[in-house]
């Protein structure tokens, strides 16, 4: 058996081609980051037997979901050369508003309201960035404040409790033994990946981030598609907020507080350039994985919180350093 496998030049050829194809789909950064990720997992497996268990993987999936769904949108925005600092407060205001509607009118209207408001906030940001041509950094920094304020004002700063029991479905249901939220994440990721790689919209997004002027002259509706990425992000923030608050059974007005830099970090660690046009969702997936596993591992190890910050910082810098070292080795 073994002999035939290695003996057949055809097969080897075939495998090589497959390998090349894989390489062509992923860029070098993504490969290096995957290596960094595997290294991290290895270290954790050696340090604690608790890491590599099914149960822990369930935890990891949950922990990756909230940031993960948001980071999909953030990737699109960054690919156009933009940035969204307001993802956390966008999630919070949508969840809070939806929750209030839900208390009045039931689960379905509540969920619809949640998703609509999240998208609407995204649309407004998109409008200001793409049509009014304001700096994305400033617009979304403004919305970071405004969204949080609005959330506090909706309930006078209180958590919203007493949501319908049925609402808990979204965060807790399982299909087979696969949690619903994981399926939602995979489906959303898959759709976004498909959009970016296989549809015109994806091509436009890269084109806008890479050379807006050229895209415009080629007839791409630059403003529309730029705004679209913010709208999608708004929608995804609402989905994220939906899943989280459903699982928590209450809407905390501080939902998603201080996640803005993490959401960007996940994207940038994955090799997407803040200047736009370069990178993609696979990288973001790895970025999310690294951030999630790192936090989980440090908790499992019981590392003091004062040390955790240092560990996170070092691992983040080290993982990009690895990429840079490998690139320099290759070039000499």
């Amino acid at each position, binding site marked *: 058996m073994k002999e035939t496998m290695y003996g057949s030049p055809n097969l080897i050829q075939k495998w090589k081609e497959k390998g090349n194809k894989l390489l062509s789909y992923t860029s070098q950064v993504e490969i290096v980051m995957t290596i960094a990720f595997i290294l991290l997992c290895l270290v954790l497996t050696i340090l604690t037997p608790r890491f590599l268990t099914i149960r822990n993987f369930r935890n990891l999936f949950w922990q990756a979901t909230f940031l993960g769904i948001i980071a999909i949108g953030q990737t699109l925005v960054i690919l156009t050369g933009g940035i969204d600092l307001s993802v956390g407060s966008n999630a919070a205001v949508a969840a809070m508003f939806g929750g209030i509607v839900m208390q009045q009118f039931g689960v379905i209207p509540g969920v619809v309201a949640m998703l609509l408001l999240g998208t609407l906030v995204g649309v407004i940001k998109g409008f200001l960035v793409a049509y009014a041509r304001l700096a994305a950094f400033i617009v979304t920094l403004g919305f970071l404040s405004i969204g949080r304020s609005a959330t506090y004002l909706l309930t006078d700063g209180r958590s919203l409790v007493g949501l319908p029991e049925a609402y808990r479905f979204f965060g807790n249901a399982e299909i087979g033994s696969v949690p619903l939220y994981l399926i939602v994440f995979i489906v959303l990721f898959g759709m976004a990946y498909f959009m970016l790689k296989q549809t015109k919209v994806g091509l436009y997004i890269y084109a806008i981030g890479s050379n807006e002027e050229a895209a415009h002259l080629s007839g791409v509706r630059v403003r529309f598609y730029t705004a679209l990425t913010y709208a999608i992000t708004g929608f995804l923030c609402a989905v994220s907020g939906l899943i989280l608050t459903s699982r928590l059974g209450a809407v905390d007005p501080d939902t998603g507080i201080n996640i803005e830099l993490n959401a960007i970090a996940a994207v940038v660690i994955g090799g997407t350039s803040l200047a736009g046009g370069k990178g993609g969702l696979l990288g973001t997936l790895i970025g999310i994985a690294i951030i999630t596993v790192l936090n989980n591992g440090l*908790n499992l190890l019981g590392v003091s919180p004062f040390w955790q910050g240092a560990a996170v910082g070092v691992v983040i810098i080290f993982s990009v350093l690895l990429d840079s070292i490998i690139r320099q080795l290759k070039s000499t």
Partner: protein
Amino acid sequence: AGEQEATGDSEGITIAYVTPALHVPFWKNVSDGIKQEAEKLGQKVTIIDSDSELNAATQLQNVQDLIQRGVDGIIISPTDSASCPPVLELAKADGIPVVISDIGTDSGEYVSFIISDNFEGAYQAGEYLARIMKKKGWENGDVAQIAISQARQNGRDRTAGFEKAMTEAGINVVNLLQCNQYTRGESFNFTQDLMAAHENLHGLFTQHDEANLGALSALENTGDYKNIAHVGFDGSPETVEAIKSGDRIAAASMQQPVLMGRESFKAMWKYLNGETPEERVLVPTILVTRENVLDVEDQLADNVFPAELEAQK
């Protein structure tokens, strides 16, 4: 505080303390109280601190990880009473006992709830402030507050307790500024702004210790402590020294975080040994004033800020 341990599997017992933010001195002191009591046992009990970074989602993730790690019990100071139920559910599913230390929960099952009375403490501080202002003939003056987040129950309690005392005394409350960073620098600036905004300001209530000290600096800086009576909530040795000095901060209602930590651990330990702890333990606040400061100093040293005293030596 290098409480690393490779696994929770050794014969010792591991208890996790889930804190909203370990770098906030109050929670650090609760953590210290828990550790003091654990050390007293002389047995192998490991305490792990876990920092929720003031974020309900992080808190839930940390608890998942802690349960995964195999802790024997969880003492939690929730980020918010609404964020606690899911934690309680997770723990219940694995049969892990939970003691709630401060803040509280909206629902769910737990072993014991240790709380200090924010409303009452703030009310007492307010009463004392009113008394001073009357004595100095400032009863027509305005008072302002530098508050902790009003998105939290304890914040709303402190505000409400204080304002109740002011209403009773007929004193006008003009302004409330809410902290975002909880640093001295922030409250220093807030105090400046309050003084600039209200010419008739004669009273100030600061709702956490960094605010006490920031306001203290600002008032000292301008010499305005002579015209403004200042009371606070919570405290540290610096606060106590200022109270002792006689003309700076007049009083502070101090929670007893170390005591709360001790009580929390005691309740947990009782439960782990098959006893039934009290379901609700109310830890009183101490109103430290110029008059009683010398009497209560020992109590403060034990229950409020032993570690700070240790650090200053």
